């Protein structure tokens, strides 16, 4: 079953085409990777799916519903979560509060209830705390740092907290923009394991952008390749590795 489908997506900035006629489907419970050289339009695709960019053309369907015209916050509420290439944590909050913020859209507390606190807001907050402790903090092994301000954390841990915040959204689809970029070997291995666990233990669906080919080939179910805003190939990691267009895009034109 397709949980996310993108049809004929085109995006340009003032006449400069960033994406041209991109179509792909993501199946529930798979890791779908998007690769391509720098500037190929990978992040632009995530931005369109998330609703931050408004594509000139195309249709985006999430879990059977057309979300092309839906606002970014509504899309998030419908089950779309995101991690960012350049970490986008909220620096004024602790790790715990950042993670709790991820759950925002599924909480109910109104402004008045928040001011009163006792009653529904209290009950919701307590349930949330238990929930994120068991569901996210435990899973990502970040118990010792939960009370620290995010600014105090090492880069690799910040990336992990960002993933935690996204998981707290209980997403149907998780968009990850270069989760292992800038990490050392050990951190990379940890992150790859978490991504696989999200798929295998939780049945999560992940759309992944990454430059680290080892990680991509290890954990992806299917891979799509972009070059200059065009889709040039799609298939299993095996197929992609031997695809002539892909080799050309990565290694440059071979002179015969």
């Amino acid at each position, binding site marked *: 079953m397709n949980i996310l489908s993108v049809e004929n997506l085109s995006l340009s900035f003032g006449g400069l085409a960033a994406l041209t006629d991109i179509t792909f489907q993501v199946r529930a419970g798979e890791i779908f990777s998007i690769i391509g050289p720098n500037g190929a339009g990978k992040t632009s695709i995530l931005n369109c799916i998330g609703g931050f960019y408004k594509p000139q053309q195309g249709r985006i369907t999430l879990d059977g519903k057309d979300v092309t015209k839906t606002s970014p916050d509504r899309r998030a509420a419908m089950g779309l979560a995101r991690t960012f290439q350049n970490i986008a944590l909220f620096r004024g909050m602790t790790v715990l509060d950042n993670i709790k913020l991820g759950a925002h859209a599924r909480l109910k507390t109104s*402004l008045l209830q928040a001011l009163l606190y006792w009653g529904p807001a209290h009950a919701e907050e307590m349930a949330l705390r238990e929930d994120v402790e068991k569901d996210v903090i435990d899973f990502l092994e970040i118990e010792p740092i939960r009370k620290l301000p995010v600014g105090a954390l090492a880069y690799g841990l910040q990336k992990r907290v960002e993933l935690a915040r996204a998981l707290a959204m209980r997403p149907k689809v998780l968009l990850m923009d270069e989760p292992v970029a800038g990490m050392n070997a050990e951190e990379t291995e940890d992150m790859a394991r978490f991504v696989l666990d999200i798929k295998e233990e939780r049945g999560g669906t992940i759309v992944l952008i990454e430059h680290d080919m080892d990680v991509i080939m290890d954990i992806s179910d299917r891979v799509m390749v972009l070059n200059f805003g065009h889709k040039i190939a799609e298939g299993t990691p095996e197929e992609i590795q031997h695809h002539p267009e892909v080799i050309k895009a990565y290694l440059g034109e071979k002179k015969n």
Partner: protein
Amino acid sequence: MRVGDFKESYAADEAVFRTSTARFWLGVFLVALAVFPFVAGDYLLYMANLTGVAIVAAVGLNILTGAAGQISLGHAAFVGIGAYTSAILVTRLGLPFLLCLPLSGLAAAFFGVIVGAPSMRMKGLYLCIATLAAQVIFEFIFVHWVPVTGGIRGINVPAATVFGLQLDTEFKFYFVTIPIVILVVTAARNLFRTRVGRAFIAIRDRDISAELMGINLFQYKLYAFATSSFFAGVAGCLNVFLLKVVTPEHFPLHESVRYLAMIIVGGLGSVLGSIFGAIFMTMVPEALQSLLNLFQGLDPAVMEYLFPLQTVIFGLLIVVFLVFEPQGLAEIWRRVKDYFRLWPFEH
């Protein structure tokens, strides 16, 4: 020395006052607040009431500007709207004080939402200047809409009455101010224990990713404006019944700047900081006056320098805090507490 911060339940870990020591000192502080009016004179009680009003307004501004990151140069105007609402309701309709209080807040919140509505499209400096425009325009209305506001002479109001008791002295008014301050501070603190407060901070830190995390920016910015101006309106109501008069002179641009100075000096985004800042910025001019009084014997003309010196010191405080202690008094307080937590084994 306190050791061993172990919690048995998440509820205990989420409490505001997490240790028995903290709860003990809170208790001591509340007792002191209750005893204070019986030992203090009228002047000190007046200062306490004035400070209380400032705390309510500063807490409101800190929610909007400190936490949600929307700079407002128009906070005094909202205090003014609350003040005029109360004055009109009590003189024209004879409404009781306890009803004026929430209605003033609601009136201010209403206008706060109107001023805040364009914040969806405007950011940072442009919004800041739009709120400056609101301040200037409301000030103009206070002065010139004479049939309603009484123009520059303003409106005189009778002493507030609560359950038949006239609050005609500073002493009696104190028992209204303090509970309201406690209520407002508690409500603000509550806000930041829930998703609403977290959403505010997220909008301040990174509005775009906040939206991608499921926060409706427009809705929450309006929430911030509404909450902030509601508290401003309540402060305005208290102000009217404390001074028994309302005139446009009470709400100039400089007053808006003074509230901003309170939250800067106290600590942006911190409820405790709003309290510290309001106390500090109310007390400093008084302290300066007392200081000059000491020198009056040497040179009677020294009092001429009072107002210019106050102006210079006011500016210096803002600049010095921003340059050297941008987290404000709240941060200094935290460091002092940390010191005593491990005392006497500080190293």
